[in-house]
């Protein structure tokens, strides 16, 4: 079966985002960019499904297609996924920062073209933190959804997914085709080896534009301003536990 994995180029996980002085957004000039960490986990799981690693039967997945929507440099993000083991890529070029609804509509158009049995994707991107695209894609495709996956098993036309919920874990079985969004503890993504990085350079990336898909991507939200959160100032160091308890009692915290 075929898996589609959407990936996003975002600010690197280890870089602290800084707000621009004119309050129009976060300063991304000369900042290290990487694949969204949740998307890396989705790519890794797709590759394990293809290779038959862990509890997956070999050949569960036969083709992994990676799609990204973003600036020209998002090709690098797709190359990273190809080096991890994905087969080919699609870049839908857009200089605009598209909203989740627009992204979901574009991905729907890609799904209709590629006809995957499974869309495997990160639960949220670490820039917008919306946690929305997977659920929205499932809705407009009229597919089932299994979000926040910490374990995935594919068998008998179903995705059996253990999900992280408040208070513990829930297991559901969704009929394929389905959208599965992945959480942190599903796996630890590999580093691509040098030979695989070289091999990835020969893999195909189809270059598309938003206009190719005839989808309405007009924004529904206007960002009025982006500001830094209030800064919490450091307090005092206390000598020992007894002084701490006395301070907390005075402050009414105990």
């Amino acid at each position: 079966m075929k898996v589609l994995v959407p990936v996003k180029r975002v600010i690197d996980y280890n870089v602290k985002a800084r707000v621009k002085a004119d309050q129009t957004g976060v300063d991304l000039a000369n900042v290290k960019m990487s694949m969204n960490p949740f998307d890396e986990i989705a790519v890794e799981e797709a590759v394990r499904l293809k290779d038959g690693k862990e509890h997956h039967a070999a050949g569960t997945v036969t083709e992994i297609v990676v799609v990204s929507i973003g600036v020209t440099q998002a090709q690098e993000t797709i190359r990273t996924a190809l080096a991890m083991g994905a087969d080919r890529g699609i870049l839908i070029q857009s200089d605009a920062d598209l909203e989740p609804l627009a992204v979901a509509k574009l991905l729907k158009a890609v799904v209709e073209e590629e006809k995957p049995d499974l869309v495997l994707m990160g639960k949220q991107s670490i820039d917008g933190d919306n946690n929305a695209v997977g659920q929205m894609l499932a809705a407009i495709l009229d597919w089932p959804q299994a979000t926040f996956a910490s374990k995935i098993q594919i068998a008998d036309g179903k995705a059996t997914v253990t999900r992280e919920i408040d208070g513990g874990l829930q297991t559901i079985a969704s009929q394929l085709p389905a959208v599965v969004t992945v959480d942190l503890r599903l796996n630890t993504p590999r580093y691509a080896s040098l030979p695989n990085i070289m091999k990835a350079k020969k893999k195909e990336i189809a270059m598309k534009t938003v206009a190719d898909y005839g989808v309405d991507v007009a924004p529904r939200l206007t960002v009025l301003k982006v500001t830094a959160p209030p800064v919490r100032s450091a307090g005092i160091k206390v000598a020992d536990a007894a002084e701490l308890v006395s301070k907390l009692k005075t402050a009414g915290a105990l």
Partner: protein
Amino acid sequence: MAVLVIADHDGTNLRDTTNKTVTAASKLGDVDILVVGQGAQAVADAAAAIAGVRKVLLAESAELGKSLAEAVEAVVVPLAAGYDAVLAPATMDGKNYMPRIAARLDVAPISDIIEVVSADTFVRPIYAGNALETVQSSDGKKIITVRPTAFDAAGTGGTATIETIAGADAARTDFIGEELVKSDRPELGAAKIIVSGGRAMGSAEEFHAVMDPLADRLGAAVGASRAAVDAGYAPNDYQVGQTGKVVAPGLYIAIGISGAIQHLAGMKDSKIIVAINKDADAPIFQVADYGIVGDYKTIVPELMTALG
């Protein structure tokens, strides 16, 4: 304006995340509450007692009892026609079904709001809480999840009517099972005091040996850093941080936690923060009201003694 709030509950008890979402919703208009569940009459009764609530709708089915997204969507989408806004707390359940409902209605959802500026303008954290975005929605209907810790809980004393409506099931998803962590301690989201442990604990046995007695002495909930959870020292639902639970208790005691950005994003709105760490340069001390530099192995027993 008419606003629908989807209640958060455990099947029997209404969680106060619902009361907090009602506070946010009441800034937009008249509030009705929808309870989806199974055998959830007690929850509907509690929802009807929230001050200022107009009406409570109760929809029940086996799969609504497990909050399956497709089932919740099937109940909410037809109801949404009668409302200007639908709000739910940004819990794992709310995050699961709200974007699905929004897409069905062709609306851009607004996730995890921390402030209602006006009927169409909201503030929400982005970049793991390192920036706050003020967004204005042009959609006719608003679909919103609310960060509960950012709002006070609406009080009780209301006498809303309860109306039963048809339930629904998820067409192509089946519930298989669940493993819920059983605990007599308060839930992280509702606790007044949280004691949170980090990777310094070194093992699951040590984590529980250190954290559990202290939590019991203080009547506190136990939290953990992502590093401690990833290392297997604590269950996943203990995780406090941008990718885990966002908490804001009266007192947060961080033990052996260095204070990574993503952890701070999950607890920096706590009223009083205490840090115990042997590294005097740990970033956690930059947000702590009271810090003790030292090994938790010495400090925590002393703390137990000092608490008496």
